[in-house]
């Protein structure tokens, strides 16, 4: 009866209220650089910058912390955006030929971006093709009351602002043609409108440039041609000189021309000057040209103090007021992916001491790193200063670890740590040689930092572990390197101690076919203040490190690869333990994932680059609907249909011990707990593998004073084979009250409550398929939840987080947070493992997003929505980091008053757009996913990845096979009896 009541707790209104106070899901902010930006605008009055993306998002940035996001209803690329200066209004043109008006509105005393109007240019009666009305350029008049649209068909249309109503004064080519001399006409159309420019002195006149080269100065009021410039070179862009007496045209051959505009000569054939800057031969088109008046190299107008260039992968801001035009560091929009992100690690509640030292190390690296010169500073950040400092560490493919300030809305770079300098790599000297040796033409200066090409993939960072109290850091990489670092405020010149640990342990018949280890540099190396390597441990074979953990109080690190795991005493520089986890039948583990994956990755990357290139440069104008296009589309659909004829099949077979890569060490953990018996606790180390094995070691760690004399001993205590053999994703020890054990030093420095050592401890083992809590020291099953059997999803990431109630700071609960392969997040109570809430978070197709997810200790999380952007989300009703800003605007005609009731759009952009996938071609999507899975490491997608291998289960396993090396036989029997009694059924039954 009692049991029944407990099971119904989900319906208990009291419990429901508590849950509401603890848990709430929201995607709060996007950190980093927008993926595939496609449009840029700046409002000098409000000092705001807007970026449009190919996925239909508009993001507005002002002062650090001032951020707003709007997402168009249809996922079409934003091709142009224009501010209505000072009004807090933005016009956007999308790839689907729709125009949208957005407004910054104030709601709940903060600013939001809301769409208020949209417009679609109707086709011209009698003309079937819609391409004629496709908008090519937009001119927003300075007065902000009129919008001129140039079209593919050569027409110019006018819209009233801000209502977006079409005025009945469209200008068509035939009207212009009447003024054009016969010899210029030669029966050809003028082509699409390529440029519309308002006369700088006379706002009634606009300059219209047609693709064929004709440029017309048109008077809007009198509707007549003022000047006619009969250019013959294909036109790309136009810009006025300030006086309005001349303008510049740029052309497809890479040249530009200066033309005079005078009333005395209404029809011109020849420019004042014509230049091909990187000539003499024609080269690439100059498709954007600006003309600003300068005085002796310095821009004199205050609004022209910096040049903002939006590139595909980063934003570069150049200070035009300082000599040499240096770049200005950006306080947001950091190119997270300047080298591909390979792993991430979040540290919450960073102690002030560590924070200061990291900042100081960063400032010595890059002294100019202050954001005072940042020119875009509109709006006010209303968010209160974060209560605690948070660090996000990203590991990169080039062997760097970057430290980011993740305390607030804008993710700021703090410090960059490189590990490449302790190894001898082939590419060490290449950089300087090429830079000095080759003379490049054209002589461009390189700015920006986006450099996705890794010199040596072995340098890639795989795992990071930090002790925030002692300033110790362990990073582990692709070639089996595990580097122990210590934070130092002084420059140092020292040799690194190198040790190798053989994880095969005399296993015979295995030969490593993968890459070599990274040769460490001999002799001493100079290290700047910051994290400095002291010990390098190299795993043999040098397979990628799959798990690492650090216990700074015990001076121990543990690390694992696909072959086994090791324990190393970095104080004495001596290996304590190495254990091979390789299954005898596993041949794949010796292939060296990198050797295979690398080539795959490389080819994927190349093809991805090809696709991207063709996507970007292949079309200037996006898809034009024409009959041939329809045929192609139909063919494509047909091809897709064909592909569906052979349906996807999935093999249903249980996991087996013979599975390849079954020996991969998935997780490691240290804990001070009861492994030997119920009365004496002590240091333990736990390791979990891909095949559902858990190894628990009892450690003899000498006391602080004796570290130098006495060595650490490790004794295998328990071996647990999970019945269902699913990979062990995480292991955590819970104290007598069911709370996770505190971190090292937390207790000794009075920063956390000591663990309860009175009640019996338990260990929570999370596999890909289920969660299970076992009592210690006997390892008897206590509670479990079979997630896969119930939901058909598999565990990808888990964390124990603490959730504080919104209604009372005093009340908090621990929860097991779990992200599944379907991208949803489940939360469970601990240690009862009762399901609490479930949220959809990531699209299940977004494999790299799921693989990149990290949770914080206070119920937030991050995942990559593109190679360059983290989505930050919150699971806690209390701890939320979201933009809270205000931009005050004055508008003559306020539309938002009417549409104030409309619901704000969800603030997410990019990867979270539901229909985004549809906008991409299927092949690209598939390829992306493949690439992501190839990049996510280690690739442990099972069972589907191994679905093609027939596997038989072996022997009749009954309960988890617990091998006890410390207990007596009697105890073992008791243990067994306990299991069976607890589960209320006779022995010989599966607990899988």
């Amino acid at each position, binding site marked *: 009866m009692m*049991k029944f009541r407990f*099971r119904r707790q989900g319906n208990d209104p009291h419990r429901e209220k508590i849950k509401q106070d603890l848990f709430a899901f929201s995607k709060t902010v996007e950190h980093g650089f927008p993926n595939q930006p496609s449009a840029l605008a700046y409002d000098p009055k409000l000092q705001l910058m807007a970026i449009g993306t190919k996925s239909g998002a508009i993001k507005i940035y002002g002062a650090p912390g001032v951020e707003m996001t709007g997402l168009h209803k249809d996922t079409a690329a934003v091709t142009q955006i224009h501010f209505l200066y000072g009004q807090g209004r933005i016009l956007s043109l999308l790839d689907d030929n729709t125009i949208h008006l957005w407004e910054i509105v104030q709601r709940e005393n903060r600013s939001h971006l809301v769409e208020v109007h949209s417009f679609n240019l109707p086709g011209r009666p009698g003309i079937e093709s819609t391409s004629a009305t496709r908008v090519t350029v937009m001119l927003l008049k300075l007065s902000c009351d009129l919008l001129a649209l140039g079209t593919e068909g050569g027409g110019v249309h006018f819209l009233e602002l801000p209502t977006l109503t079409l005025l009945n004064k469209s200008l068509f080519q035939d009207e212009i043609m009447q003024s054009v001399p016969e010899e210029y006409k030669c029966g050809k159309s003028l082509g699409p409108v390529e440029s519309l420019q308002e006369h700088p002195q006379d706002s009634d006149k606009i300059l219209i440039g047609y693709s064929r080269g004709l440029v017309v100065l048109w008077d809007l009021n009198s509707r007549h041609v003022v000047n006619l410039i009969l250019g013959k070179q294909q036109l790309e862009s136009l810009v006025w000189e300030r006086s309005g007496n001349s303008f510049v045209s740029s052309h497809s051959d890479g040249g530009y021309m200066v033309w005079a505009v005078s009333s005395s000569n209404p029809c011109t054939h020849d420019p004042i000057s014509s230049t091909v800057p990187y000539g003499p031969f024609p080269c690439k088109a100059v498709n954007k040209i600006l003309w600003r008046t300068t005085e002796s190299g310095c821009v004199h107008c205050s609004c022209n103090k910096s040049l903002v260039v939006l590139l595909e992968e980063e934003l570069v801001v150049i200070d035009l007021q300082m000599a040499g035009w240096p770049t200005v560091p950006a306080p947001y929009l950091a190119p997270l992916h300047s080298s591909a992100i390979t792993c991430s690690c979040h540290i919450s509640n960073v102690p002030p001491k560590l924070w200061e030292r990291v900042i100081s190390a960063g400032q010595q690296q890059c002294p100019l790193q202050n954001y005072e010169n940042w020119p875009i500073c509109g709006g006010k950040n209303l968010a209160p200063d974060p209560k605690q400092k948070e660090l996000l560490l990203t590991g990169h493919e080039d062997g760097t670890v970057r430290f980011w300030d993740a305390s607030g809305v804008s993710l700021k770079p703090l410090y960059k740590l490189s590990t490449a300098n302790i190894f001898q790599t082939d590419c060490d000297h290449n950089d300087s040689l090429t830079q000095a040796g080759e003379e490049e033409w054209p002589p461009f200066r390189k700015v920006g930092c986006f450099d996705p090409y890794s010199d040596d993939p072995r340098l890639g960072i795989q795992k990071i572990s930090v002790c925030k109290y002692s300033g110790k850091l362990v990073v582990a990489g692709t070639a089996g390197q595990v580097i122990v670092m210590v934070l130092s405020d002084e420059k140092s010149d020292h040799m690194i101690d190198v040790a190798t640990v053989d994880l095969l342990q005399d296993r015979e018949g295995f030969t490593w076919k993968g890459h070599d280890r990274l040769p460490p540099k001999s002799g001493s190396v100079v290290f700047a203040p910051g994290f400095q390597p002291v010990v390098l441990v190299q795993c043999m074979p040098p397979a990628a490190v799959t798990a690492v953990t650090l216990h700074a109080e015990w001076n121990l690190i543990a690390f694992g690869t696909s072959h086994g795991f090791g324990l190393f005493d970095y104080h004495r520089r001596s290996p304590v333990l190495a254990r091979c986890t390789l299954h005898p039948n596993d041949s794949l583990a010796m292939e060296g994932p990198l050797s295979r994956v690398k080539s795959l990755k490389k080819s994927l990357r190349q093809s991805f680059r090809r696709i991207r290139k063709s996507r970007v440069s292949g079309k200037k104008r996006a898809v034009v609907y024409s009959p041939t296009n329809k045929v192609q589309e139909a063919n494509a659909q047909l091809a897709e249909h064909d592909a569906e004829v052979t*349906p*996807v*099949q*999935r*093999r*249903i*077979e*249980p*996991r087996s011990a013979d599975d390849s890569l079954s020996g991969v060490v998935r997780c490691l953990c240290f804990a001070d707990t009861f492994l030997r018996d119920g009365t004496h606790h002590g240091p333990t180390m736990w390791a979990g593998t891909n095949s559902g094995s858990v190894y628990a070691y009892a450690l003899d760690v000498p006391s602080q004073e004796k570290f130098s004399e006495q060595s650490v001993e490790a004794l295998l205590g328990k071996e647990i084979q999970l*019945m*269902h053999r*699913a990979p062990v994703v995480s292991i955590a020890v819970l104290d007598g009250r069911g709370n996770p054990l505190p971190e090292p030093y937390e207790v000794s420095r009075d920063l956390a409550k000591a663990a309860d050592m009175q009640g019996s401890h338990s260990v929570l083992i999370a596999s890909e*398929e*289920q969660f299970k809590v076992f009592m210690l020291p006997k390892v008897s099953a206590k*509670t*479990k939840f*079979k997630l*896969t*059997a*119930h*939901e*058909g*999803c*598999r565990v990808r990431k888990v964390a124990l987080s603490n959730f504080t109630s919104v209604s009372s700071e005093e009340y908090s609960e621990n929860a097991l947070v779990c992200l599944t*392969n*379907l991208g949803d997040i489940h939360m469970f109570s601990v240690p009862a493992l009762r*399901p609490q809430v479930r949220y959809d978070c990531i699209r299940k197709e977004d494999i790299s997003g799921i693989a990149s997810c990290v949770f914080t200790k206070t119920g937030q999380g991050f995942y990559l929505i593109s190679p360059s952007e983290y989505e930050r989300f919150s699971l806690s009703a209390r701890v939320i980091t979201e933009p809270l800003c205000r931009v005050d605007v004055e508008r003559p005609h306020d539309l938002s008053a009417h549409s104030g009731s409309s619901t704000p759009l969800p603030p997410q952009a990019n990867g979270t757009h539901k229909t985004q996938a549809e906008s991409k071609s299927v092949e690209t999507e598939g390829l992306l996913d493949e690439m992501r899975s190839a990049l996510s490491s280690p690739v442990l997608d099972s*069972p*589907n990845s191994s*679905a093609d291998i*027939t*596997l*038989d*289960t*072996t022997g*009749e396993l009954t309960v988890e096979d617990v091998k006890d090396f410390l207990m007596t036989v009697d105890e073992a029997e008791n243990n067994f009896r306990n299991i069976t009694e607890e*589960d*209320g*059924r*006779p022995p*010989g*039954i*599966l*607990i*899988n």
Partner: protein
Amino acid sequence: MTPHSNDLQYDLFEAEYRRFALKRNGAGGFQEFYQLLQTIHRIPGVDVLLGYADIHGDLLPINNDDNFHKALSLANPLLRIIIQRRDVDVSVPFPTGSLQRRKKGLAGLHQPKQKSKPALLIGLPQDFRQISSIIDVDILPETHLRVRLHKHGTNKPLGFYIRDGVSVRVTPQGVEKVPGVFISRLVKGGLAESTGLLGVNDEILEVNGIDVAGKSLDQVTDMMVANSHNLIVTVKPANQRVNNTMHRASKTSAGNSSAGSGSSALSHDSAPSPASQNASQYSNSNSVAEGDSDDDTDLILENDNLSTYMPHRMTNGNGSHANALSSGAFAHRPLPQSVSLPSSSSLSSLTTPTHNGSPTKTSSSQESMREDGNFITL
């Protein structure tokens, strides 16, 4: 009738079915019929024993004109004929109640090499290893079949694949197409094939009591793999949808709650539960049985012991044992639909397995349905 050696090699046995029509009056005599069967099964010259299932579930011999005509007269509208090779050691081929005796299969068939030592072919029931069973027959709609595959302890692969597909449902609003998951392939020699209980294109409705509606192929795959040590799948067999709508309709209109045509196991010793035809109800009851608490989940696993699992006071425990035996004898999966052809009185359908007793559907009466169950488990 004889359970044979302990070490069953199920896949070595073969059974096949034929269904054909015969004029009740123009059937001729026994010899003609005997030759007809030999022709139909392409076994000319093979010496066989014929049997048929009477309304009490007894397997009765056909060896002369009299009992042949008696058998024909009992066809209502179907008559199941069981053909068995004569050379086998079948001391008592047609004992009374044989079809109800669960611990004895109808397996009388042996391979030629075993012929010489017939004595060794008899094993005790407990020596058999159960590899599959049909469960919950009484609570499932007759169109559904719940199969347990006992992976554990065998070294055979489960041996099947699943795919996405479209399922057609008849709703009050009309015919509705919904995505579904189907068995796409059976691996030769695999557990799934050797039980004969699952077939290609069967729709998967539940995995270990959890409805798969709305779940993706990958989710269903994961659920099955997670439960693979003791996999219980509820399927809607493919063929019934094709040919038996009328028959089925007549059954339901008769208010008969007979267990799934041809799919029932051993439900004869328990009264069919009144709610058995209500699909939603069965899934409810099931979720109670296998619900979210640990013990519940474990309870379902206890069913390995066969006697402890009693959903709705059902006593079908031992029955599953017979299933195992029978599936050993007949590698082919019973095709319920083949039996349930609507037929006029002038037509009787005969289903004839080549070797031994096999699934043969007779009538729509509840009793015979139960008997059918017995046959089908074979």
